[in-house]
């Protein structure tokens, strides 16, 4: 129980019991001042409940405090004693209720949180028309699901409903945060609960690959148990999952939104085999090709919840170079890697929106590596969730060829309507100021490969977009970057917070910058899409090496002849 509720009940019981002798004394020593003591429980209750907030299971205690007011209006000793005794009993009743129905005690009101967040998002979300969002339909669809979560008093169910709601937008900037699980450990615990709630299982392996025109491979395979007995190992081609094709099993399951949010269809497709590998009942029947190429079938029992293996595989596939943000690492005698984990340099630069010191630092490093004879630069932007647009401009100016380059265009903000202005006839957004940056070409035209993955979002998307048109720049990865580029705002209620795109960026034609529309295709393509093949499985899961980096080095060799 919460401190204030405990304080309230203890005080109420003590005060009520003290009212019994007070009722007797008031007859002996007659004074109008005795009335005051019969107001005390109500006032104490109101003040504490005011600070602690109303709690329905504490209702008996509140009622108890109110009935002692009878002693204020009436001087009857009998009435005063009986109401005081009743108040003490009601206080104890509240303790009994709070302790015995813990799931309902101070339970969050998930529906209320949704009801408060939803209209704010509806008012400020700038991509609703672009993505074909039907707000009324969404509200009708999800509000009952939050009501179900309320009935069940289930934080995991609430989280799962938010994940599905968020998924409807196909926007990397739409994200739900449960403030009770903001740190990584608590979030992992909550996510594991959500996976369990949705029935996600672990069958001793994960799947990755290409479902449309290639194979799906077993990865992160358990080295004992049924899966090992069947001879399935990293790289084994899995042809069907529980009687379904891998694509069917990965797309027709309840894990949409729960197992990741993708702003682009291609990125979503890439992880469909992984999603298939947590779908099943107590066991799944898999068909696979053995080492001789013969098709075989095995029944794999469920080993437990699916979250741990799913995340392990996901993190391995999405790995980047493990050094600090804005760190440098020599990869080989010709190549150096510049790691950008986020578009945030330091607080002073962010506060003043001045990235001169960052530029000087990068330029000094580039000069050092040029002097050391480095020819190739890898900019590793994998898992870069974004940050400052001003930082992107500064960064772009370091690497872009000399001259003025277009970045993006702000939407035209109308102060009178507190929203972005639209063309009255077409409904299209009006353009505000164009934004440019001046290239300094500090790498002097040498080859640059930018590594991205589906977690390279927002300002990382911007950087990829502004750089990919230059002759010396190649963008590479298993998938393209996230494809979510608008500025972010948020709405909060209780312990829930929802971020969403609220600051509009357009391209030179006045279309939405990068973000996918209802076609679910973002405008941030990739130059080299690395296939997830046997080679990738071996490098990532057997040799524990960075496959994308290996591919980048091969590409440099090809470029340099």
């Amino acid at each position, binding site marked *: 129980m*919460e401190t204030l509720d405990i304080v309230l009940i203890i005080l109420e019981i003590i005060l009520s019991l003290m009212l019994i002798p007070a009722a007797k004394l008031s007859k002996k020593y007659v004074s*109008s001042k005795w009335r005051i003591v019969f107001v005390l429980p109500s006032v104490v209750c109101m003040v504490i409940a*005011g600070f*602690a907030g109303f709690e329905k299971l504490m209702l008996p205690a509140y009622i108890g405090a109110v009935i002692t007011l009878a002693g204020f209006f009436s001087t009857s000793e009998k009435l005063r004693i009986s109401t005081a005794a009743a108040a003490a009993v009601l206080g104890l009743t509240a303790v009994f209720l709070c302790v015995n129905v813990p799931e309902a005690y*101070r339970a969050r009101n998930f529906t209320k949180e949704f009801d408060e967040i939803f209209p*704010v998002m509806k008012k400020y979300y700038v991509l609703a028309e672009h993505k074909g969002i039907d707000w009324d339909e969404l509200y009708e669809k999800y509000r009952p699901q939050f009501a179900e979560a309320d009935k069940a008093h289930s934080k995991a169910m609430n989280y799962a409903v938010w994940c599905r709601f968020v998924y409807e937008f196909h926007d990397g900037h739409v994200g739900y945060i449960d403030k009770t699980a903001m740190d990584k450990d608590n979030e992992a615990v909550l996510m594991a609960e959500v996976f369990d709630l949705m029935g996600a299982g672990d069958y001793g392996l994960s799947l990755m690959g290409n479902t449309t025109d290639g194979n799906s491979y077993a990865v992160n395979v358990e080295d004992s148990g049924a899966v090992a007995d069947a001879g399935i190992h990293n790289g084994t081609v899995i042809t069907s999952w529980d009687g379904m094709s891998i694509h069917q099993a990965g797309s027709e399951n309840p894990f949409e939104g729960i197992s990741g949010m993708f702003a682009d269809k291609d990125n979503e497709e890439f992880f469909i085999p992984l999603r298939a590998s947590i779908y099943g009942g107590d066991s799944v029947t898999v068909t696979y090709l053995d080492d001789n190429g013969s098709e075989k079938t095995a029944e794999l029992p469920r080993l437990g919840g699916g979250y741990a293996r799913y995340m392990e595989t996901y993190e391995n596939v999405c790995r980047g170079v493990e050094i600090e943000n804005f760190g440098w690492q020599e990869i080989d005698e010709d190549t150096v890697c510049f790691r950008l984990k986020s578009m945030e340099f330091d607080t002073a630069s962010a506060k003043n929106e001045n990235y001169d010191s960052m530029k000087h630092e990068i330029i000094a490093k580039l000069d050092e590596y040029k002097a050391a004879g480095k020819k190739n630069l890898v900019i590793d932007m994998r898992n870069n969730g974004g940050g400052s647009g001003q930082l992107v401009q500064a960064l772009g100016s370091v690497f872009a060829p000399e001259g003025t380059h277009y970045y993006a265009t702000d939407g035209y903000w109308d102060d009178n309507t507190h929203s972005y202005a639209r063309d009255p006839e077409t409904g299209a957004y009006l353009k505000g*100021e164009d934004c440019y940056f001046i290239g300094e070409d500090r790498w002097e035209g040498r080859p640059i490969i930018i590594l991205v993955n589906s977690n390279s979002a927002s300002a990382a998307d911007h950087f990829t977009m502004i750089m990919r048109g230059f002759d010396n720049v190649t963008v590479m990865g298993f998938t393209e970057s996230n494809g979510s580029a608008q500025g972010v705002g948020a709405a909060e209620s209780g312990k829930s917070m929802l971020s969403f795109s609220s600051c509009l960026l357009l391209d030179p034609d006045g279309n939405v910058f990068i973000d996918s529309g209802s076609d679910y295709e973002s405008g941030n393509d990739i130059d080299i899409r690395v296939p997830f093949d046997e080679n990738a499985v071996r490098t990532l899961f057997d040799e524990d090496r960075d496959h994308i980096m290996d591919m980048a080095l091969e590409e440099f060799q090809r470029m340099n002849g």
Partner: protein
Amino acid sequence: MMKIARSILYGYGRQSIIRVIFIVMLLLMFSELLVFIQANDGNAFTMSEFAASYLQTMSTIAEMFIVINTCWVCTMDFGDKTANYELMTGHTRLDIYAARVAVSVITGVCGYFLLILSPVIAGCFIWSWGSCVYVSDMIFRWFMLIFPVVRIIVETAFFSFIVRKPAVVLIAGFIINEFFTIVPTNNEMVYTSCILGTSNLAKLTIVDARTTYGLSDGAMWLTFDTMLPKSYIASTVIAALIASVLFFYLGYTFFRYDDID
């Protein structure tokens, strides 16, 4: 009752202590305006931004005024036996009680709004209102403040009639507030529920700011979201009416049977 109210107002207008307190608080309000101007040194600002972002601070100061004012109005006539003379000249206890509560409400509400609006209105003569908040939205927000303000005045009047010593009411209020700032709680309802007048007032004076930004230099637009959930508006009005009536009645019931020295 009207005669008593008029006589209280007559005496009220000649009490220099309330005037001094009011002027000091007014100076505090204008110092908030100076703080705001200082914080925006070199940047463009508007009075709509000040009105919305400093409403809570100004309201907290003005709230102190309405509590002091109510304590003063409701208890000043017990010390010099004025209330006794009123009884002896045939006025009912209800008249005596209601007149003091009514004067507290009138002077308290007027004082509260004079305090929170003076720097905004004065500022508008020098700087523009701007576009951060629509005037109509801000007027509605100010209007909503009337309910908890009246409620706090009636509640304070109740305590004043019981204690009859303004200093005790003020110190008790201060101690209660301090106590709850040190009690840990995980409940997000703290300080925002309608159960207490002060928390209700605090919630109504917080106007959520929303910043929209762009890539080009200085592309940043500040707006304030004045939208209040309908349920909160309804509960504010209902809670204020119930609490006001209840505490008015409790106060009167006590005063009716109380011994006046």
